[in-house]
Every structure is written in structure tokens, then in C-alpha cells.
């Protein structure tokens, strides 16, 4: 067992090391810290068109590198975040935004879960109310009380 572990240890260490590899390491210079912050926010919130579920900052795909460069260039040209988002969605569609904008086609996405939750809440409430209403009056009349006592005593119905 211990020998097994000893054999496995280097591999486990390698696995740990692998998690520290950043997908994209680029040395970039920005005019200001504010610009750099905007850049980082944009590349974190935009999706790599090639990889389905990675943002631009976390993707190794060549197109992600190109789009990062494009964003940086546009920031340096003084374009606003909205301009850049507009530029990207005109070419890559809503798909590129990890946080989809509120529009007719995304209403369901934004409010669907809330609607389902509220729907579930009302259904449970109605079910509980129905269950409560179906509970019959459990108090016994004096005769019934007597019969119950007799039954408990004899162990059989008289």
C-alpha cells in the first residue's frame, strides 16, 4: 500500500502543478490601471467563440488571443466598453456575452428560473391547503369515546 502511494505521489504532485498553469500569459502594458481593469473585466465576461465554455481570458485558442488583442487595441483608441461590446456582438452575436443582455429572446433566460420557483411555490402552497382541508374533524363524541375505551380494554370491537 505504502509502496503504491510512493509510486503515485509524483503523479499527484504533477497534477497539482498543472492547476497552476494559466491558459494565457501575456505581458501587456496599459495607459492606466483603470484601462487594465476594464480590459480584464471585458475578457472575463466575453466567451471564446471556439471553446463553448471558456472566457477570453481563460482560453488558449488563437481566436481568443486575437480578440483579446482587438479589445486592447480598441481600449487604447479610447472606445467605450459599450462600443466594444457592440463591436463583438455584431460579429459573434449574443453568444459571446457570458451575461446575456435583456431582450425579447433572453427574457426566458433571465426570468424563467424565477417564474419556475414562484410556480413551484404556489403549487406546494395549494397542495398543502388541499391536504389541510381533507383532514377530517378528529374529535370524538362521548359515545365514540366510550366505544374507543371499550375497544382498547377488550382488544376487540364489542
Amino acid at each position, binding site marked *: 500500500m505504502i509502496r503504491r502511494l510512493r509510486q503515485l505521489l509524483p503523479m499527484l504532485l504533477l497534477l497539482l502543478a498543472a492547476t497552476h498553469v494559466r491558459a494565457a500569459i501575456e505581458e501587456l502594458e496599459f495607459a492606466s490601471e483603470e484601462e487594465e481593469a476594464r480590459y480584464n473585466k471585458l475578457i472575463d465576461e466575453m466567451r471564446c*467563440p*471556439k471553446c*463553448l465554455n471558456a472566457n477570453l481570458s481563460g482560453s488558449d*485558442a*488563437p*481566436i481568443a488571443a*486575437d*480578440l483579446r488583442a*482587438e479589445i486592447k487595441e480598441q481600449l487604447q483608441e479610447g472606445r467605450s466598453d459599450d462600443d466594444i461590446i457592440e463591436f463583438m*456582438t*455584431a*460579429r*459573434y*452575436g449574443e*453568444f459571446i456575452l457570458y451575461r446575456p443582455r435583456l431582450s425579447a429572446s433572453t427574457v426566458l433566460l433571465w426570468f424563467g428560473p424565477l417564474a419556475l420557483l414562484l410556480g413551484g411555490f404556489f403549487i406546494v402552497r395549494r397542495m398543502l391547503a388541499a391536504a389541510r382541508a381533507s383532514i377530517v374533524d378528529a374529535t370524538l363524541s362521548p359515545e365514540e369515546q366510550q366505544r374507543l375505551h371499550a375497544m382498547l380494554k377488550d382488544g376487540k370491537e364489542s
Partner: protein
Amino acid sequence: MSNRAKLFIPAVFFVTMLGLLFYGLGRDPNQVPSALVNRPLPVFSEPDLFDPSKTISSEQLRGGIFLVNVWGTWCAPCHYEHPYLVEISEREPELTFVGVNYEDDVKAAREFLEERGNPYKINLTDVDGSLGIDFGVSGAPETFIVDSSGTIRYRHVGPIDNAVWAETIEPVLAQIQ
């Protein structure tokens, strides 16, 4: 609603979900919807692959049906689709094939076409990938069908072969003509 009808609600819900999931299974998640379909061709002006002193502009892609193919010698699926493109371009002379050599070594691209045949009537280069971004490509190969009014009608991601041509591109062309 009668209580009897209410009993069917979970069943209807279940079948609907099943249908949606089944529909999702049949879809290729790599087929990302394109923002450019049914939009005009992006405006561009890029150097000719064989004569960089000349430029080719989007204005030249008018008055016919164009097939714009984004490719590069660095891209393995492009090597796979190349012989099909050569064959299809011979079979479909009414289509104008436009090759966008994407983020490539221009010399290698010229040699590639000289060696293996050139399916494109128009060849342009996009060395820095900016035209690729304007087309909204996610890589190569990608193919766009442009109609005679200069509107993009279809985008295909991935290599084209005879099966893809018959199943997806031909119906689009039939619709345009």
C-alpha cells in the same frame, strides 16, 4: 379544470422536457449561431494573395453567388477539405470561390495552391486576422455563402466534403437560385 385533467399535467411536462432534451441531443453544440447570416458582407479591402500590390475589396463581391472560404496552410481540416473544394469548384462553375488566406505565411499559401490546385477565382490575404474577426470566424475552415445582393446567407463551420455539400450547402444554394 377537472381533477382528472390535472393528473395529466406532470405527464405533459415530462414529455415536453423529454422532447426538448431529445432535440438538444441532435444538435451539434459546436454550431454556434452566426450573427452575420442575413446581414451584408463586411466591408473590407485586403491584399491579393498572388499580387500583394493589388487589393481586393468587398465591392468586387457583387452580382453573383460567392462562396467565401477561410483557410490556412496551418489548419489540418483545411488540408482535408481542399481536394473537395477543387472538385466542387470545377463542378459548379457558376459559383465564384473566394479564398481568404487567414493568419498564414503568404509564401506557404501560394505554394500550397500551386501544388494542390487552386479552387479560388479570388484570393486574398488576412495576415493579422482582422478580416476574420469582421466575419466572426472562430477558426478555420469556415465557409460563407454570399448571394448576389451581397448578403451572407449561410455560414458553415468546419471542413466541407461531398456529404456536407449535398446535405447543407446545396439546399442553401437551391434556395438562393
